[in-house]
């Protein structure tokens, strides 16, 4: 009886074949919705610190070194890869990568640091990014609009030339 069960066990084991993954030798892809390390993009970040305020691990530090330079520092050491920073970022400057091979022997290797140039508000004297969120809201009548002939600029990098075009009017409907 016991011999029979041993034989049965052997047959079962042989039938299963090899299940061990050849992992470190061969790459192992992650599931598509896997959240790995967040990656910060300095070109898109406007320095609003929304990510820092929403991080449950208080992992993102924001400090202004001077009037014009804001440092956003992601430490990486107690990040739980929850994806809230990517969720709240209004500019989609944070992406949750598929990066999981983050083991290291120096914890500072995981940090990411953004140095952002910020303009100074002429009224309140505090720094804000350029183009400002106000510009992004495309407020009517803000700054260089041609109020006299009722033409508005809806893009912070746009400008008006001498003659009005049909395109101006079309944007105005917005």
């Amino acid at each position, binding site marked *: 009886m016991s011999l029979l069960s041993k034989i049965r066990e052997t047959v079962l084991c042989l039938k299963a074949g090899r299940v061990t993954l050849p992992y470190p030798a061969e790459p192992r892809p992650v599931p598509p919705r896997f959240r790995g390390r967040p990656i910060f993009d300095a070109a898109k970040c406007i320095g609003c610190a929304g990510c820092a305020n929403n991080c449950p691990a208080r992992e993102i530090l924001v400090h202004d070194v001077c009037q014009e330079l804001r440092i956003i520092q992601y430490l990486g050491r107690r990040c739980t890869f929850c994806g809230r920073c990517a969720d709240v970022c209004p500019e989609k400057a944070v992406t949750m990568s598929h990066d999981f091979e983050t083991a290291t022997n120096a914890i500072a290797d995981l940090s990411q640091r953004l140095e952002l140039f910020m303009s100074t508000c*002429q009224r309140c004297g505090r720094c804000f990014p350029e183009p400002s969120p106000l510009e992004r809201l495309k407020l009517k009548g803000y700054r260089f609009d041609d109020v006299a002939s009722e033409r508005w600029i809806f893009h912070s990098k746009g400008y008006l030339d001498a003659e009005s075009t049909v395109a101006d009017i079309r944007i105005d409907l917005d």
Partner: protein
Amino acid sequence: MIKQLCRKMFRKSLWVYHANSGGCNGCDIEVLNVLTPYYDAERFGIKLVGSPRHADVMLCQGPAMRPTAAALRRAYEAMPEPKLVFAIGSCACGGGIWHDSYNVLGPVEKVIPVNYYIPGCPPRPEAILYGVALALGLVEKKMCPVTLQRRRLPIPRYHPESLVGTGIEIVYKDAEKV
């Protein structure tokens, strides 16, 4: 340097001791997952032992807590030299999301020296295997600190007379006007 030391000191099998000093058990499950036939850490000679006195490597999970810090320290001291410590999970690496709780001291680094860090909450079993392979010198490290700078010239925001259209963008004729 640590890698060379590892190769020299730990040429034979690594016996690991699994210490949880107050984690949520998520990382423990992933560590045990690594020892299953599917991931099979035993092909690297890794064996889980029940006592720190038999172990070469300590796998730490969970932050250093007020009640467990002394026990963690004692377990570390009980391990024979040479010894390695792996901090597995965000809790052990940096205190985790409870880093500011009343009874959390912080990362295990505050109590015992740590050689390797495997962040994640919990890390994938593959990530733990990768960390072990890194310590054994089988793979290369992929991480390095990143600094991204985005600097621009101060912009004469309230001097529209210095703006010139080029067709696509505004050009600032004299930037030092601010």
